[in-house]
């Protein structure tokens, strides 16, 4: 279409919209929020508080990394929090049985991977909907966590290890945990956005049949993603246990909805095929920092709950409304132009 009317403002609009992808919006919103909060909320801008925020967001961020991939393939994993609980419980059990922590940690991650593989096999092997399967394993894994540890908590973790989870790099005030967080986020981000695997992930989410016709082993891909999700949950299980020096069956109870919420808030489409990691990372920061700021500002828990929900809806609603408004405006302008 070579002969476009020069008066048509549409290209400008669509260019603008392309630039202002949801990613960009949520990143900008997060940055803006951090600046505003730092200047208005007492104690928010301190290095110590930043440290708290980072340690607080770590589990959600780690789980959200793989969840982003899973949701991008059009699936979901509601069992992550239960997996954190079960792997943590298993870790406690092994510790009670005198196994060395250096052995326990990889075993725990491996166990997580196994639990993820169970999800993956049910979903891709039997062709069952992931929402249903992972609701089942949500109950199963949490239940098994209670079977393993019962009502006891294992708390005598060595200080070297628990201290590391909260410690900082030298005197820089930067939490130790930042290093693995950034490394893992980079790896996942690169895989998703810059490798053939990432392309396959989006393809599998956008149209699994067409993906299969393009030689993508959709089932295998998804299965591995669940394994990765489980392994990550195992890693979070280790982190959670050491960070709170407490292995308990109810560790990370209810965290799955938070993880799903940040992934959606980050602009990943629940139907798969769309969404980018930077948006999700920004959403994790935004949500954690917002909660932190509200607490510091003595705002009640109730407000926190409402704000979380409202933010989630607004995140998807706002761009839709903007697009609708833009379309309406454009077609009105065009109609007006045509009637001249």
């Amino acid at each position: 279409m070579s002969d476009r009317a020069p008066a048509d403002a549409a290209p400008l609009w669509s260019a603008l919209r392309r630039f202002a992808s949801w990613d960009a919006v949520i990143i900008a919103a997060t940055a803006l929020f951090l600046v505003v909060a730092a200047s208005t909320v007492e104690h928010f801008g301190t290095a110590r508080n930043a440290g708290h925020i980072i340690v607080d967001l770590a589990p959600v961020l780690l789980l959200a990394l793989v969840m982003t991939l899973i949701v991008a393939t059009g699936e979901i994993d509601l069992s992550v929090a239960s997996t954190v609980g079960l792997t943590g419980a298993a870790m406690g059990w092994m510790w009670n049985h005198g196994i060395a922590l250096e052995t326990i940690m990889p075993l725990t991650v491996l166990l997580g991977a196994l639990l993820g593989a169970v999800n993956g096999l049910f979903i891709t092997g039997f062709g069952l909907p992931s929402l249903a399967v992972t609701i089942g394993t949500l109950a199963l894994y949490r239940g098994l966590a209670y079977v393993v540890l019962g009502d006891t908590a294992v708390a005598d973790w060595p200080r070297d290890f628990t201290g590391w989870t909260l410690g900082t790099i030298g005197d820089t005030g930067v939490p130790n945990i930042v290093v693995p967080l950034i490394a893992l986020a980079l790896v996942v981000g690169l895989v998703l956005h810059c490798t053939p695997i990432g392309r396959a992930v989006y393809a599998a989410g956008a149209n699994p049949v067409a993906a299969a016709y393009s030689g993508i082993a959709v089932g295998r891909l998804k299965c591995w993603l669940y394994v990765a999700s489980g392994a990550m949950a195992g890693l979070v299980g280790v982190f959670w246990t050491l960070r709170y020096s407490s292995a308990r069956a109810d560790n990370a109870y209810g965290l799955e909805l938070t993880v799903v919420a940040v992934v959606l808030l980050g602009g990943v489409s629940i139907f798969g095929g769309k969404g980018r990691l930077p948006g999700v990372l920004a959403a994790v920061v935004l949500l954690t920092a917002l909660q932190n700021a509200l607490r510091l500002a003595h705002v009640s828990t109730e407000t926190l709950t409402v704000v979380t929900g409202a933010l989630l809806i607004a995140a998807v609603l706002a761009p839709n409304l903007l697009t609708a408004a833009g379309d309406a405006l454009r077609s009105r302008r065009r109609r007006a132009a045509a009637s001249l």
Partner: protein
Amino acid sequence: GGTTRGDDEGDGPTGTGGTANPDAEYRTGLSFAMLPKQVNNPYFEASSTGAETVAAELGGEYEFTGPSDASASSQVSYIDTLSQQATDVILLSANDPNALCSSLDQARSGGSVVVTFDSDVDPACRDLFVSQVDSAEVGLALLEMTAEQIDGTGEIAVLSATANATNQNAWIDVMRAELESNPSYADMELVEVVYGDDEDEKSFSETQGLLQAHPDLRAIVSPTTVGIAAAARYLSGSEYQGQVALTGLGTPNQMREFVKDGTVTEFALWDPTALGELAAYTGAAAASGIITGAEGEVFTAGDLGEYTVGADGVVTLGPPTRFNAENIDDFDF
């Protein structure tokens, strides 16, 4: 090689250090924050009322804050916030004895006094613990009430809160030990412990399950206010009313009806408002240097009277009050 269990001995209790000055005055202008297991819980609201009164009396600031879910991890975030705000006195009912320690250490090194109440943490991580009652005393009282109601014979079961609840587990352990060792309880048998998770509905259906699983059950002991109310409601509407005894820990307002209709004969509890008051006084005393948490120190908690710090920095409110048809109308909480 490798790090295994027992390699790392935890440091002993740190204590607040310094020396106590029993004659000092309560400082004014202290900031108090109460962090319950979870907000929106009537029991803690009552404690909060007590603490708030004391805070006002001492001319301090008061805040009631906390998570809406009873989890240790959420509490950690709140403790971090309070320690940043350099709150003078943190009154805490812990969801986990260990998980909060590192945050509490930070808060204390920042100058906050940490007083736990209702549910303790590792003694090394706090300054003082205000115990509603002595664990042993509660366990014994529960068993005693039960035995009285079923003439010391038959199967009994426990409907507890969450499986990890520190208090409840301690009391249940006392009961277990006593059942084994005390010959006057020889004919009683604890057949099962179930968990209502301090959720009304779950406790309700757990009660159902207990009664069906154990046809010969004589009594249910529910050492949690949510559980006993749910169980009472179930019993009062079922054919088991009057057949199966129910006792435990409950609030008079919730249980009044069931005492009147004969579902429940007697139950016990301490006064949560008084507990809140004592916690606030204890915190204020520690923050004012009147006590340090060492055994044997004495302080005056307003109208509540004089209290002595026990071993491990524990201050005990007093024996639980038993409520029955005769006295229940005298209480309103």
